[in-house]
């Protein structure tokens, strides 16, 4: 079974570019309907299928994603 993972997103730094959304193989991420202080729809986790593959974090231009994976 795939390992479980989790992501923490720094929503105030996120610019809502959506690159992470298309990079996620598990479709865990989506843009929130709400906006952050700068007015961007930030990325949020929409389900718990994350495997901690780090794909979202390594394509994030603003380095806002921190990834955890169970050992």
């Amino acid at each position, binding site marked *: 079974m795939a390992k*479980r*993972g*989790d992501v*923490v997103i720094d929503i105030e*730094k996120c*610019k*809502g*570019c*959506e*690159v992470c*959304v*298309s*990079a996620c193989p598990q479709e865990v991420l989506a843009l929130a309907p709400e906006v952050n202080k700068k007015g*961007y729809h930030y990325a949020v986790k929409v389900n*718990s299928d994350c495997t*901690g593959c*780090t*794909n979202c*974090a*390594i*394509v*994030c*231009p*603003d*380095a*806002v*994603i*921190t*990834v*955890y*994976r*169970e*050992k």
Partner: protein
Amino acid sequence: MSENLITPENLVYQKTEAMTDRILHYCPGCGHGTAHRILAEVIEEMGIQEQTIGVAPVGCSVLAYYYFNVDMQEAAHGRAPAVATGIKRVFPDKYVFTYQGDGDLAAIGTAETIHAINRGENILIVFINNGIYGMTGGQMAPTTLQGMKSSTSPFGRDTKTMGSPLKITELIAQLPGAYFVTRQAVHKPANVRKAKKAIKKAMEYQKLNKGTCFVEIVSNCPSNWKMTPVQSNKWMEENMFPFYPLGDIKVPEDK
């Protein structure tokens, strides 16, 4: 379920300490941020943060010195390889890199780029090619593709009157001073990993004093291409990559 995973021992990825905590001024989805980050990650992984000196260009990445947590020097427009030459000759044991865009490296800085590489200066040149002058409002750059619209070629680049796009990377690969020349991209996870490996290789080659390492990163410019970041990455795959194919262009022969 998710709370118990967020513990220090489960941490697999976080922002590198070789980058500062400043919020990047780049537009959403711009490849500059990713390119900065992988270069900073290489510096952190090699443990050379104290021995690295970067040279910032003029262009969108003019404020690169705010983001890299290493010693940085700003250069006049296009002159980063010349400034890096001076730094490397005074501090031959330091790791010196320049970070330049296509307007900086392939237009105003062509002479400095070609001559620094022809002299085989032991520096790393990171070249971000998005085919446009980003900061000044999307004017045509030497690297703008044939038929590509920009604010100074609103009907598309006509090669009869505006010349052909300049493949500066292939050009400099001919020079004997170039040791390692490669072209990469940072729009997909696999490409980011490959680009990071290329930068790491280039940084390691700098120890050997064999010549200039040159890493081109084909990137996007969502704002000036007037697309969303995801669309611009797709456009880049369909239009930029056929003309600027990814891969190693010159690899060390003695390896």
